[in-house]
């Protein structure tokens, strides 16, 4: 394997690592927003149920 091929492998591995970290962070931020939405929905459900009584 040439030095260029080794460098390509190294850059791709590094790129993969950075992309994985970005994907993970985006997942955390989206989960945080979804968590909020879930809580809002749960609160709305609770309100509706209370109103029906």
């Amino acid at each position, binding site marked *: 394997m040439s030095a260029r091929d080794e460098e390509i492998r190294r850059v791709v591995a590094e790129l993969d690592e950075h992309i994985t970290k970005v994907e993970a962070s985006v997942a955390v931020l989206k989960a*945080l927003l979804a968590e*909020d939405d879930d809580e809002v929905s749960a609160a709305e459900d609770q309100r509706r149920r209370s109103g029906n009584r």
Partner: protein
Amino acid sequence: MNDVSGENLRRWRESQGWDVPRMARELRKAARDSGEDVAAHHGLVKMIPQWERGSRAPRERYRLLYLKIFQGALGDLSQRIALGVDFAIRLAEVRTRATRAPSADEIRGLEADALAKLRESMTPAEIRALTAETIAHLHEIVNNLAKLSALLEDEGSQGNWGKA
């Protein structure tokens, strides 16, 4: 191609950023170009996931069509970089993921939304730190894509990252 697993068929497809209906269209197009008959589009859309899961093996004519489609896309690249088809698939996958990832502005938008609706699971400082770290990774991705582009002596690997 008998030893190509269903998992590899999926990886080949995803390395091009194609969904199952697009893969079906490519198979039909390759068949049409060589004057062959293949299943209708909806039939292929059902069969492709079965092949990829390994619950059913593609018949020879379909295996040959896969080869025809992907030899062009991956074979040339793997020969150019002399690292093999597996590495060419990985490279194509990584580049596809890079082009699909959000821009720095989109990350900042998520940060603003998260800060506007604070919950107990993360403090504002943690959200800001996570965003800063993510944007730093985006810059590294831009640098790596540029290096990769230079190493492969091609253009177009920057994708959407110029805006990061």
